[in-house]
């Protein structure tokens, strides 16, 4: 049984449809990259998986249970956690408090402050600093660490490289690489195609709310992905 | 008929025209004009008691319209408009004490309220949301206290508009009515003009998302100021006319927060943010207070409960129900998108 099963999911904002009938499944331990241009619906899809957005049709099943209408905080209890776009740390709280809050409201499990600083060493000296004083890269590490403190089985990451320097992005991906697969299955929304293909096992490319290309990362060529990304047809170019 | 602009002139796409006036809105304009003529003739055709009741009704219409201008158009929830009502009333007293003809004093008093709103705005307009609400409430309370402390204005025991003693009752009621009607037409005319002008779109933008509006160049503060001054003028006018209608006022009641309660009720029930809603709300409120005001505290409890229910369940008021069914607008304040070549319309 797949860890996550999505069937015919549709979601939008008022009359605007962002996700138009998406189906896929994710096995435990997999690393999936969700790519696509801005406005393709990636973030909306991720938010539906996290419980932060209500889909208008379709089904989301996690670990066999239907969670389609479960609110976000309940999904955390089931084991789904999302690192939102823009990090969204609790600015007036310290890094340690950000981590504590997640630990106190998440699932019981092995992640604690010590383990998390092992995975993200840069956080060690920052623990008692206010979140608002951190740089972009530090905030990103802290945000991922915070989600990990809820002991998720499925971790959703929305655009972790956004607004970060290449060095910071590399550091984040190194830490993600180091995560134990048996502990956390990952779905990343990522703009950077190269990174996505290098990191993930499987890639889903979205365009205008639909999945237009899906496959194992090492079997897809860059050209295929680029074309799907921009909505170009294989045969004759042009719309 | 239109003063429209052509949009979407690509050959294989349907063409649309942007219109302000449509057939139905011209019809309703006709009704409005007829209605106005009838209203003007009320003192001639109806008896004294009816004239007084109509004056009350028009006062409620003004108050509802002004509160709606602030909250519905500008997103400013004021709990302190009674401050301007009181200013209008007491300025009239003061002016007549200094020899000004009473009806002229009433007009000037509305101007005084508008003038005073400028320094007051410097204090409160920087506030938002609930802070603005309580800030205006404090200002109104301060004004009430200041008046109470001034014995020349009658102090806490109240005062009468003795300058109207020289008029016969019928004459007084007529002039009061016509001046109230004139004020109603002026403030609603100004509101309508504001909505139709480029202010109107800007106001909508501010109401929907103030920061986003500011980021595209909408000058938020001047627009709010215009609304604030307009509402002060209207409430000041209402205050002066309340005095003319009842002849005796006391600071606690004329500066009392119950005026805000009435205004909120009327606007919520009628329709927040619509042009016609406040008028509907005022008519309903007039009916309710005519029959139930003697129930004392229970009457107010009822008002409060109804207001809460409308705010939670039908925030756009009863007019929104009418609008959805019939697409009726009293006067056109928006734009309509019409397809060229067909008689069909889509509302803008």
């Amino acid at each position, binding site marked *: 049984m797949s860890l996550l099963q999505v069937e015919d999911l549709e979601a939008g904002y008022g009359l605007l449809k962002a996700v138009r009938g998406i189906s896929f499944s994710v096995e435990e331990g997999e690393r999936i990259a969700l790519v696509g241009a801005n406005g393709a619906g990636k973030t909306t899809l991720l938010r539906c998986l996290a419980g932060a957005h209500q889909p208008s049709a379709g089904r989301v099943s996690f670990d066999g249970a239907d969670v389609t209408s479960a609110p976000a905080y309940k999904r955390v209890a089931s084991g789904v956690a999302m690192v939102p776009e823009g990090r969204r740390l609790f600015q007036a709280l310290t890094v340690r408090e950000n981590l504590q809050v997640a630990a106190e409201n998440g699932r019981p499990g092995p992640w604690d402050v010590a383990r998390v600083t092992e995975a993200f060493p840069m956080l060690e000296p920052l623990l008692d600093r206010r979140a608002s004083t951190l740089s972009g890269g530090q905030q990103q590490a802290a945000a991922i660490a915070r989600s990990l403190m809820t002991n998720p089985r499925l971790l959703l990451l929305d655009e972790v490289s956004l607004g970060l320097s290449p060095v910071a992005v590399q550091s984040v991906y190194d830490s993600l690489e180091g995560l134990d697969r048996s502990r956390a299955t990952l779905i990343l929304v990522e703009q950077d195609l190269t990174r996505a293909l290098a990191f993930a096992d499987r890639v889903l490319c979205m365009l205008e709310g639909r999945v237009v290309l899906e496959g194992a990362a090492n079997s897809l060529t860059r050209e295929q992905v680029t074309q799907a990304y921009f909505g170009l047809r294989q045969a004759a170019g042009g719309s | 008929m239109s003063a429209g602009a052509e949009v979407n002139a690509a050959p294989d796409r349907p063409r649309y025209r942007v219109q302000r006036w449509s057939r139905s809105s011209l019809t309703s304009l006709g009704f409005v004009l007829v209605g106005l003529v009838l209203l003007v003739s009320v003192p001639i055709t109806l008896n004294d008691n009816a004239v007084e009741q109509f004056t009350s009704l028009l006062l409620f219409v003004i108050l509802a319209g002004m509160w709606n201008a602030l909250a519905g158009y500008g997103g400013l929830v004021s709990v302190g408009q009674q401050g301007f009502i009181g200013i209008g009333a007491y300025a009239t007293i003061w002016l007549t004490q200094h020899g000004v003809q009473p009806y002229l004093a009433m007009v000037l008093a509305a101007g005084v309220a508008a003038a005073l709103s400028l320094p007051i705005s*410097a204090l409160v307009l920087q506030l938002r949301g*609930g802070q603005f609400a309580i800030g205006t409430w*404090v200002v109104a309370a301060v004004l009430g206290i200041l008046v109470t402390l001034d014995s020349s204005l009658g102090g806490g025991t109240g005062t009468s508009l003795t300058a109207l003693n020289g008029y016969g009752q019928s004459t007084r009621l007529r002039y009061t009515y016509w001046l109230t009607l004139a004020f109603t037409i002026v403030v609603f005319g100004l509101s309508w003009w504001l909505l139709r002008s480029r202010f109107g779109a800007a106001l909508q933008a501010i109401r929907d998302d103030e920061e986003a509006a500011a980021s595209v160049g909408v000058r938020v503060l001047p627009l709010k100021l215009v609304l604030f001054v307009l509402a002060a003028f209207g409430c000041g006018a209402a205050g002066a006319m309340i005095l003319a209608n009842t002849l005796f006022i006391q600071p606690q009641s004329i500066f009392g927060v119950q005026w805000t309660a009435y205004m909120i009720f009327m606007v919520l029930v009628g329709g*927040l943010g619509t042009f016609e809603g406040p008028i509907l709300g005022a008519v309903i409120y007039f009916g309710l207070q005519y029959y139930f005001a003697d129930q004392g505290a229970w009457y107010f409890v009822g008002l409060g409960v109804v207001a809460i229910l409308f*705010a939670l369940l039908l925030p756009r008021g009863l007019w929104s129900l009418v609008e959805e069914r019939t697409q009726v607008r009293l006067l056109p304040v928006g734009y309509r998108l019409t397809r060229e070549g067909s008689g069909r319309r889509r509302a803008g």
Partner: protein
Amino acid sequence: MTWANLIVQGVMLGGIYALLACGLSLLFGVMRIINLAHGDIAVLGSYLVYVVCDHLGWSPFLALVIALPVMLVLGYLLQLGILDRSLRGGQLVPLLTTFGLAIVIQNLLLQVFSPDVHSLAPYAPWISTASWNVTSQISVPLIGVLGLVAAVAVLGGLQAFLHRTPLGRAMRATAQDADTAALVGIHPKAVYARATAIAVATATLAGTFLAIRATFDPSSGSTQLIFAFEAVVIGGLGSLWGTLWGGIALGVAQAIGGHIDPQYAILAGHILFLAVLASPRGRVIAHGVAA
């Protein structure tokens, strides 16, 4: 009365204003709602205490043992029935519903209890009249000391709660960003319910102290709301201790104004508030965010 005595009186009154204000401030910080019925809730609490005192002959502080739980239940219903729904409606709706609620509470009280003025002082005869003469000029009333102690204790407790307990941390996180709080497993509604409970309880306590010190009637709620708000603004949004200083400043201003002429007491407080608004600090407050 000397200046020193005035200031002592003002500080004591101010402590109670701070107690009244902290609930308003908390609700605003956590839910972004200014509860226009806050003052009336405090008065409702006073009336509840009064009813218990009147029927059972107990002292007000003992009566709180019954009144507080009742108020907490009412607060829970308030949160569930009105505040939570209002949040979904947008910016204006909470103001409109809480104002409606204020009118309803005031007039229900008026209907049930008549406009007569009451006081809880007769039910705490020794507490409300005892005082120390610290010097020949300064007299410190017991009720004043109790009020200040209660205020500091509650504010201190609240501060500790917010910063040292998991529930408190969850509340601060929700105040910062309710959506993201849900993403780390916090149930926003539960947080809101707790915040409302705290606000209602502290308002009831403050209302009781005010009712012992002075009188109350159904219309006192509006004035108390304004005092609470003024204390928050003068002290600066965002810190509980700031609210204490704000309350004290307000109390002292009122004491000084009242000394010049009893009619000027409340006016003096308003003037201080308006002066703070007009100052550069006012601009900061206007755009500031709480807690």
